[in-house]
């Protein structure tokens, strides 16, 4: 079958985009429209499911099937959809509040089930749509509308939680780092099993610059490590890297330690403990890793298995026969 060659714009719906000018969401939308044609998947087989939040308006802007559902529950909808229609490419679009506050439980469960969907978590560390309350990823002490004296909750790391749920694909990217973002989304799409991509996204209205250390082109070199499989974790223009000493990670200068001492990134390692160490690296104490932290293949997906059981049952018992069912067990005749 020859597929028509689609362009980014073919994935744009006819609806006006309604994010604030300058919002990081625009860039994620642009990258999504850009990578989708290359995946070679027809528009009608692509579905975007979202919760509620600024980020969750995303599906309206895509010329695919879409569902703007309710707050925090997108993984639930995706589970029903993908389990019954495994041939579709399903994306889940969510925010930090949507996925980690009200939706934290569904988030864990979709990951542990390894449903073959791609989750893009727009992390702006704030509730955007409701105009600026702190979120589970906001900093301790952060002053927001709901925390005039500073937030007292200790923030959650979406990547840590995902790793604890033994997610099979865990990655991070940044709204302004468009190439990296596009590449990361592509890899997420290609992974079989649940893919999680956390995207640092600037909310320029309610939390402007909260992640400037990662978004700003100049700063990002010093503060981010672009992970590459099988390579050491270098940053700072190749001058610095990460070493594991005993059970801890530390920053070293590359010209001061032998290359063999450096920690080599293994995204395929099934035991997530070291990946968890990476996920916990936090600015300003440490540089933060972006790219694919974990990509483990071969773990059965929920959608495959639920459908395999149906096939197996059919092959074992034959296609369901209503009449036989009705007459199973004790029956008797009247008249």
């Amino acid at each position: 079958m020859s597929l028509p060659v689609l362009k980014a714009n073919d994935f744009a719906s006819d609806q006006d985009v309604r994010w604030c000018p300058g919002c990081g969401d625009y860039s994620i939308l642009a990258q999504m429209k850009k990578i989708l044609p290359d995946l070679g998947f027809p528009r009608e087989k692509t579905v975007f499911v979202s919760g509620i939040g600024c980020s969750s308006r995303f599906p309206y802007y895509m010329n695919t099937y879409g569902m703007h559902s309710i707050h925090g529950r997108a993984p639930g909808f995706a589970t029903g959809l993908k389990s019954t229609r495994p041939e579709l490419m399903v994306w889940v679009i969510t925010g930090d509040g949507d996925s980690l506050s009200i939706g934290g439980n569904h988030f864990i469960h979709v990951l542990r089930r390894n449903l073959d969907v791609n989750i893009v978590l727009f992390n702006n560390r704030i509730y955007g749509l409701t105009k600026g309350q702190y979120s589970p990823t906001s900093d301790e002490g952060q002053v927001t509308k709901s925390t005039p004296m500073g937030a007292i909750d200790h923030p959650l790391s979406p990547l840590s939680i995902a790793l604890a749920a033994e997610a099979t694909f865990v990655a991070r990217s940044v709204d302004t780092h468009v190439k990296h973002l596009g590449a990361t989304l592509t890899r997420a799409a290609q992974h079989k099993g649940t893919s999680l991509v956390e995207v640092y996204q600037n909310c320029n209205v309610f939390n402007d610059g909260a992640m400037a250390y990662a978004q700003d082109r100049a700063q990002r070199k010093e503060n981010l490590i672009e992970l590459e499989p099988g390579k050491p974790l270098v940053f700072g223009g190749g001058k610095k890297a990460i070493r594991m000493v005993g059970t801890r990670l530390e920053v070293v200068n590359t010209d001061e330690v032998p290359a063999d001492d450096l920690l080599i990134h293994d995204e395929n390692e099934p035991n997530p403990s070291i990946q968890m160490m990476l996920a916990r690296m936090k600015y300003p104490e440490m540089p933060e890793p972006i790219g694919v932290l974990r990509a483990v293949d071969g773990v059965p997906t929920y959608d495959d298995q639920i459908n395999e059981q149906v096939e197996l049952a059919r092959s074992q018992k034959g296609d369901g026969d209503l009449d036989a069912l009705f007459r199973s067990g004790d029956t008797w005749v009247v008249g």
Partner: protein
Amino acid sequence: MATAPPDQNDLTPTSTKKSQSVEGITVRLAGDSGDGMQLLGTQLTNTSALAGNDVATFPDFPAEIRAPRGTRAGVSGFQVQFASDKIFTPGDTLDALVVMNPAAMVTNLGDLRKGGILIANEDGFTAKECKIAKVESNPLDANVIEETYRLIKVPMTSLTREAVAEFELGAKIADRCKNFFAMGIVYWLFGRSLEPTLRFINDKFGKKPEIAAANEAALRAGWAFGETTEAFGESYQVEAAELEPGVYRNIMGNQAMAWGLVAASKLSEKQMFFGTYPITPASDILHEVTKFKNFGVRSFQAEDEIAAMCATIGAAFGGSMAVTSSSGPGIALKGEAMGLGMMLELPMIIINVQRGGPSTGLPTKTEQSDLLQAMFGRNGEAPLPIIAPRSPGDCFDTAIEAWKLATETMVPVIILSDGYIANGSEPWRIPEVDSLPRIKVEHPEGRPFDAEDPFKPYERDENLARPWAIPGTEGLMHRVGGLEKEDVTGNVSYDPLNHQHMTDTRQAKVDRIAERIPEQEIFGPPSGDLLVLSWGGTYGACHTAVSKLQGLGHRASHAHLRHLNPFPRNLEEILNSFSRVVIPELNTGQLRMLIRSKYLVDAAGINKVQGKPFNVTELVDELVEYLPRVAATRAG
């Protein structure tokens, strides 16, 4: 395959004692949860059904998995009525009661009619057991018992031990056989064939031959005890009932619901997705449905009810027959997502097997108190159709109808079952599969995408249903969501008049269902002194009560609602044809409030909130109060 008529089998001994023919018997088996009363009850039910009786059952088990042995909280009961006439309830007062220990006796004796047969496992009435049951002295010794009932004390434990001694099983296992001994007595007493139970024993314990043999020995010993002991004078015979000809089987409500769903799936050529979270008394639907994977059923035990509801909507969006089930507290959790389901206008089924509320309430007891929750338990104006089965077997038809309404209207349909019909059972005439109604479901076809003429997901047909375009269909890409949407295009819209129009339309599409469902039927004359209006699981009791009133010469009729939203189109006319309308409900008057509001009819209520179904007698007693005295005299 239908089994051979039971009497052709010679495995059952024949009694030589006198036997009396009666129209029906109501018996309750009560013992400790560990005593196997539910099994005994199920066997007696099946056997009676196989004997051609009409049967109705009411299992009543404790809230705890296994409450401490011997306590009142641990008493498990199973009531069955079998009769040579059509019956609609498991019976009010008991003709016979079997009790295995003091706790069972004190908690159940109140329901035994004066002069009824009380069979007690004497061995279970030790001083220790009495203490655990918190009774002062052995209740079997009270004079009043022998004076009021026909008490038959049987040392079941010791007799069972003797009967199974040869198998050398050890006391614990041997004692487990005593329910079969009790069963033997009961079977003798009511002239039941041992054969189906012997077959059951064989199927169930076939792999452990000594156990099978011991249970058989206990059953036969019990039967022999009845036959030989002086205590029993005569046995009772209940002739076969005149049921509609056909092949029958026994069916429980939750089972019938599951079967109805799988039938609807076949009839609509749609594979079923069943997304749920376990909760009493709904879980058995999941347990049953999940066996049907070879019917294409995908069952999903979600992390909670909200995820279950959302997954159900997701599956509906994908084009499956999507179903979810729960009970009151779980339905409360689903409310927000149900509102979305309504807004998306996708077909699905939401089953609520109601239990005693509010809050956690009385999880193992029955109630009808979620009707208004079904109507209004969502934010905003969010009308959904509601239908309710009236008996265990009726759950089958209700499930099929729900799916038909859902697909032809494009709307989630709520089914309100309850714990009483869910766990109760009755004979069910097996339908010819070909006779079941096909359910035609269509999806719009694909076409090349045309930006100038985009697909219109909220265009409507004559039922006001929108097209069910599913992902994967070329060119029909569209987005749905919970924000108000523009008529026809489905785009987000904040336009005031559009919101009014969409609100009105969502209401109208539910209302219009009334044009397509049958008119309300009425049992009895089309006008008169009293209309008894009921819904759901109280059908049997209300029907029987009204029959009795009619038998007494009253101008009383019964209308039993299956459709609670919308109501049948002729309901108003019916209501206005009676001097008095009375609505019995197992709640404080929920249907009554809807009826009064809608039709301004001064309907009265008979309301019972005790975790238990209505008794026919209590209904009759209350209903006559609403009837003109003259009628009572007329009948007298």
